[in-house]
């Protein structure tokens, strides 16, 4: 029972008036944890009460500490009637449970009510005294660190990257319980918020246990999602990558990893049927492998025999229902076996990371994805997680087999998602098949890592582009050429991936956001018919999305996509597909060919003319784009390529003449029997529309760039101004005679207009780049399409930007020096001391740091003097894992918050826009307040995972659910660091360096 939670309620401010007569409030506070409740005194007649309570102490199990949120309720005392609730604050005390994170939570929290929104603030202090418990059979996993960041967090070093962890918990949704009919909306919302808070606590604890079992100490790339299944329940699931991390400042502290042979051997060589789903379309492309599996009869059979299959597929690991627990088992075996085969032996060699330590990624195969349509009302035992576990296990198996077909033993940049409409649910998983350097997967010492990095340094620049599969025995017909960089290995002509651009990749010009958008109408249907219809539509959608992406990529004159994310959303009467990625020109890959247009009726003169006109337009666009994105690959490189091998010259010419054909073509060959993919045949108006829509994508106004990856390829001189934002749009389609074309156009316009709006709004930041642009589509009702965008705008220095257009050679030299710098860093780190007391060695590496924002820094934090001015401390938010121009010095813990807001006076609150605008602003405020209370001044890797909006204008009602997460951090400006490092007297800095302390 090792834990004492202490809570003190200090004061309140800006409380709402609860007593109309006196225009004042008699407020008191209830503090609840688990089943224990304490109360403060009633502070009479004040809107700014000063309770200054004693310390309320809760003695609790650490299991509860992990699961339960601290619940603070502010009430108005009423002598004669029931006390009125003003609002609540939920505080996740998880960050207090690991040693390196926050030590105290103290600050002003907005008091939140699900009906009225934020109603004043309350000042709370929370502390935890934790007694160490070494019980091996404990159910808690205190001390395991969680990071949303999908790369190794900045002030840590990965000792070992263990691999995939996943977990899933199910509960009945309070909204659908019988009691919901009689209780108030407020009570219902609060029950839901509390339940989800509890469930995510439990989920995190269970994942933590798995990590401990694997001998890891952290989860990186932690992604937790909610599936609101409706009647069948509420699912909270999470995936992540277990790692052993080592804090860079304290070299001696890392875990003596898993060399102890006493550990029970649990590994079960996973010899299952390679593809249990009968009709997988198989690996057809290097870029995408999709499988659609739905057979109604099968879902029946699975239902009946679910328990058996579950047992065979995923042996239970004592507690918990997941299947990843045993991954820890094979670990020791890795040391003895060939690492590669060992990796294969893991059940799921998946990694949720999108950026890796240098040298980790050896080759990249291409995108692998799998989708499956399920019926929720057929779940035999909805309250148990088994069925869902089985579903996901099945999909993961497919992903794994696709990766294998690509000659890869691992999947990186892995993610999972769902789309639910009524009782139909589409499960999707995607990732990038890759070959990894096994050294990181085992217990490597620092020296080992260094060695590895040195050795890899020479080859990695283009290495990841080289094909992992056997050239003679390719899993699909693809067009290969010799690498344009090293001229030794073969590369594909196009590369699609879900990961971030590796930092050491050589890119020519700048990148840009590329989106494919697609709608397909679907007949309204019930149950199986519906599911069948959906699974029949899926392959066509995937194919079309893919073609669009490819065309747009060619149109931009680029040859690779990073950060690809395809979202398929299901609605009552339509399916929506939205793919976003960042296109770049990789120097190692061949120059993409153009797009040819061919008419079907060659005899018609005017038609011919029209076609040639179109062709000219397309060629012009390509030329313009090349100029815009500064894509001017050095011409000489071809000569060089030509010289060492006699054939390739001829080959490359050949390639040029028919460069339109690529693996895409071959995919077409297989599936549709067409000859050439990049000859767009205009045979009907539809095709015409398609070509037009290609050309209608307007490039961002000058001074703007956009991408959906962490950083914009080709820009590396960020300045410090950042602006994170969320934008939501809902459009209502005119229900009359909707056609696919009209629908596509509407959807396209919606997205384009949204982007245009963003560019306009942020025009004052020019020159700037929208990074991590994350689009989410949902179909809340029949005729409604909702698009939610979260991104961050970062300014950069235009003058320096000009310098980036240097030759790749120079760039690579710079890269190399950066790498060296990074190498040097390790010894430096090792000898550098703890944060606060030690004066900094005046290292002058800051310039290099500025050049590559993702690089690790050598500077340690020095606690900045808290800002003297009395306003609220500034908390930055960003979906990126770094803050430009600043060093993250401390991770304070994960922020994972779920809010419900409901209104019964929609019109009075400014309609749907007013309602949602206020709610999102409130969510931001609550996130900032929590971060500030933890002592942080920024949230990195921020993500709005869910924004479910429902309205009923006739009843004047609306409801919205929002789930956000991110990592709370402390950062210090580099400019301040420089001041400190040069030992100048630190004059008080502006708000940038506040410790996030909120003072009155």
């Amino acid at each position, binding site marked *: 029972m090792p834990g004492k939670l202490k809570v003190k309620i200090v004061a309140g*401010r*800006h409380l709402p008036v609860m007593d109309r007569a006196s225009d004042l409030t008699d407020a008191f506070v209830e503090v609840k944890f688990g089943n224990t409740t304490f109360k403060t005194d009633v502070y009479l007649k004040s809107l700014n009460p000063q309770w200054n309570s004693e310390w309320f102490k809760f003695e609790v199990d650490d299991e509860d500490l992990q699961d339960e949120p601290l619940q603070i309720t502010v009430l108005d005392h009423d002598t004669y009637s029931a006390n009125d609730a003003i609002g609540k604050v939920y505080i996740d005390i998880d960050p207090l449970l690991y040693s390196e994170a926050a030590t105290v939570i103290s600050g*002003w929290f*907005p008091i939140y009510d699900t009906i009225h929104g*934020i109603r004043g*603030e309350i000042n709370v202090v929370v502390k935890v005294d934790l007694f160490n418990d070494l019980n091996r059979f404990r159910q808690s996993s205190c001390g395991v660190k969680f990071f949303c960041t999908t790369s190794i967090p900045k002030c840590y070093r990965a000792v070992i990257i263990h691999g995939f962890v996943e977990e899933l918990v199910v509960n009945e949704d309070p909204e659908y319980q019988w009691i919901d009919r009689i209780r108030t909306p407020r009570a219902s919302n609060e029950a839901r918020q509390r339940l989800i808070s509890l469930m995510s606590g439990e989920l995190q604890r269970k994942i933590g246990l798995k990590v401990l079992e694997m001998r890891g100490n952290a989860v990186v790339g932690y992604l937790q999602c909610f599936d609101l299944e409706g009647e069948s329940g509420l699912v909270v699931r999470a995936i992540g990558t277990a790692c052993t991390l080592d804090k860079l400042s304290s070299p001696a502290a890392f875990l003596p990893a898993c060399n102890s042979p006493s550990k029970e051997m649990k590994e079960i060589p996973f010899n299952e049927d390679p593809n249990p789903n009968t009709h997988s379309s198989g690996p057809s492309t290097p870029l995408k492998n999709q499988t659609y599996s739905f057979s109604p009869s099968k879902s029946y059979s699975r239902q009946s025999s679910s328990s058996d299959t579950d047992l065979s597929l995923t042996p239970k690991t004592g507690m918990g229902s997941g299947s990843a627990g045993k991954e820890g088992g094979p670990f020791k075996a890795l040391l003895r076996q060939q690492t590669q085969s060992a990796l294969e032996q893991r059940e799921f060699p998946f990694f949720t990371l999108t950026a890796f330590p240098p040298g980790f990624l050896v080759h990249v195969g291409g995108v692998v994805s799998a989708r499956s349509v399920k019926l929720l009302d057929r779940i035999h035992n909805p309250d148990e997680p088994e069925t869902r576990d089985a579903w996901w296990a099945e999909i993961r198996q497919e992903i794994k087999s696709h990766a294998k077909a690509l000659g890869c033993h691992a999947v990186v940049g892995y993610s999972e998602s769902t789309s639910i409409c009524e009782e139909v649910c589409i499960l999707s998983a995607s990732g990038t098949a890759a070959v990894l350097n096994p050294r990181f997967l085992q217990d490597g010492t620092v020296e080992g890592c260094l060695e590895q990095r040195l050795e890899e340094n020479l080859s990695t620049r283009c290495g990841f582009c080289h094909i992992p599969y056997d050239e003679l025995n390719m899993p699909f017909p693809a067009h290969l050429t010799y690498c344009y960089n090293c001229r030794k290995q073969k590369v594909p002509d196009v590369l699609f991936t879900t990961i971030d651009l590796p930092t050491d990749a050589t890119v020519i010009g700048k990148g840009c956001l590329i989106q494919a958008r697609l709608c397909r109408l679907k007949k309204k249907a019930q149950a199986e018919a519906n599911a069948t219809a959906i699974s029949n539509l899926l392959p066509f959608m995937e194919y079309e999305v893919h073609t669009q992406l490819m065309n747009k990529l060619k149109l931009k004159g680029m040859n690779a996509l990073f950060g690809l994310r395809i979202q398929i959303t299901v609605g009552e009467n339509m399916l929506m597909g939205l793919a976003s990625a960042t296109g770049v020109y990789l120097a190692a890959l061949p120059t993409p060919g153009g797009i040819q247009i061919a008419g079907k009726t060659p005899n018609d003169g005017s038609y011919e003319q029209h076609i040639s006109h179109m062709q000219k337009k397309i060629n012009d666009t390509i030329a313009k784009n090349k100029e815009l994105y500064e894509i001017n690959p050095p011409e000489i490189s071809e000569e060089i390529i030509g010289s060492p091998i006699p054939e390739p010259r001829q080959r490359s010419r050949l390639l040029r003449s028919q460069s339109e054909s690529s693996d895409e073509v071959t995919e077409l060959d297989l599936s549709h029997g067409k000859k050439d993919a990049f000859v767009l045949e205009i045979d009907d108006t539809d095709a015409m529309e398609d070509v037009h829509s290609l050309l209608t994508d307007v490039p961002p*106004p000058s001074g703007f760039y956009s991408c959906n990856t962490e950083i914009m390829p080709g820009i590396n001189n960020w300045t410090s101004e950042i*602006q*994170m*934002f*969320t*934008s*939501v*749009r*809902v*459009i*209502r*389609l*005119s229900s009359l005679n909707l056609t696919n074309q009209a629908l596509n156009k*509407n959807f396209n*316009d*919606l997205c384009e*207009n949204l982007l*245009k*709006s*963003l*560019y*306009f*709004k942020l*025009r004052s930041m020019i020159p700037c780049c929208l990074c991590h642009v994350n689009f989410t589509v949902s179909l809340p009702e029949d005729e*409604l399409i*909702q698009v939610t965008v979260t991104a961050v705008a970062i300014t950069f220095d235009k003058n320096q930007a000009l310098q980036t257009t240097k030759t790749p050679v120079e760039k690579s030299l710079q890269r190399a020096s950066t790498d060296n710098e990074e190498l040097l860093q390790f010894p430096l780190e090792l000898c550098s001391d703890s944060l606060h007391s030690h004066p900094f060695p005046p290292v002058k590496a800051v310039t290099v740091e500025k050049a590559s924002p993702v690089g690790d820094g050598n500077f340690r934090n020095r606690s900045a003097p808290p800002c003297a*001015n*009395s*306003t*609220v401390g*500034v*908390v*930055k*938010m960003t979906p990126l894992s770094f803050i430009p121009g600043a060093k993250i010095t401390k991770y304070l813990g994960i922020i994972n918050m779920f809010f419900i807001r409901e209104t019964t006076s929609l019109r009075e609150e*400014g309609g*749907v*826009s*007013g309602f*949602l*605008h*206020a709610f*999102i*602003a*409130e969510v*931001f*405020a609550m996130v*900032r*307040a929590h971060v500030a209370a933890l002592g942080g001044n920024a949230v990195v890797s921020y993500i709005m995972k869910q924004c479910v*909006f429902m309205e009923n204008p006739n009843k004047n009602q609306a409801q919205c659910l929002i789930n956000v997460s991110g990592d709370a951090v402390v950062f210090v400006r580099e400019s301040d660091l420089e001041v400190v490092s040069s030992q100048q007297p630190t004059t008080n800095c502006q*708000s940038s360096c506040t410790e996030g302390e*909120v003072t*009155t």
Partner: protein
Amino acid sequence: MTSELDIFVGNTTLIDEDVYRLWLDGYSVTDAVALRVRSGILEQTGATAAVLQSDTMDHYRTFHMLERLLHAPPKLLHQLIFQIPPSRQALLIERYYAFDEAFVREVLGKKLSKGTKKDLDDISTKTGITLKSCRRQFDNFKRVFKVVEEMRGSLVDNIQQHFLLSDRLARDYAAIVFFANNRFETGKKKLQYLSFGDFAFCAELMIQNWTLGAVDSQMDDMDMDLDKEFLQDLKELKVLVADKDLLDLHKSLVCTALRGKLGVFSEMEANFKNLSRGLVNVAAKLTHNKDVRDLFVDLVEKFVEPCRSDHWPLSDVRFFLNQYSASVHSLDGFRLECGGTIWAHCNLHLPGSSNSPASAFQVAGTTSVHHHAQQFFLYFQ
């Protein structure tokens, strides 16, 4: 395809100054969009009208949400919902509390009541300021008035502390509050030539010298109400015109001092009794509330207009007033009988003001000198 919902929320709240101005000026979204289109923003940015519409709506919504906080500016500083840099916060507040000269001249000295609020439509049509903007300005006056009404301490400081306004704006508000509290009539046609600046200057001096606060700094609403005792004492001045000898003596003293210095000496000499009577009567009547309200009207009628009809140059007016009050001190009987306290009072109240020992006169003359000298000259020529 119709847009149901369209929002943009930034972690740092975006504030577009131009849109803020349009919003403050009370334009509807449609009008604001039209005005922005006219400003050529579409050409500059290459945006479409739809984008502009959405942007304007968004800003308006934000301002609408901020308005509640702007009603109590310290709340804006401590609230957590909108993350706004301090400089922007100051700008928001300052602009929100800024007012139109034309509007303030209309309501200056009026009771800030519901009745006045109803007349805002007329003011709106008269001044060409939108009704919305009029309402905001009126509500600002009223809000400031309500908050500082019963407070101790300096009026300007109180306003600054509770509304975080700049020094200049706080002084203006102090004047508005002072006028509203004392209900000085400023709307008469005769007074139209005086600007708000003129009145604000008077108000500042009156607050410094005529109010309770000028006597005792520990009173409630010290800067708002006139010192009754002082007004009562002013009655005693009547002796200056009632006593024939004293009047003559006073006149001769003034005339001796000013001979040769005044361009309009003969007119002054001829009119001295009238002018003196006018001034003293205005001062003596101030015990009645109604007469306090008409202070400015009376001054213009009894003093400024005679001067104007005789074409007094501005400098002469000042000379005359200086001498007029200075001479009183040398009146033996006056000093002994009753004047001592009063003039002491007056002088006490006017420490540094070299050119205006008698504050009442200042109202008519000097204010214009300071603020609208040109205007003043126009009337004299």
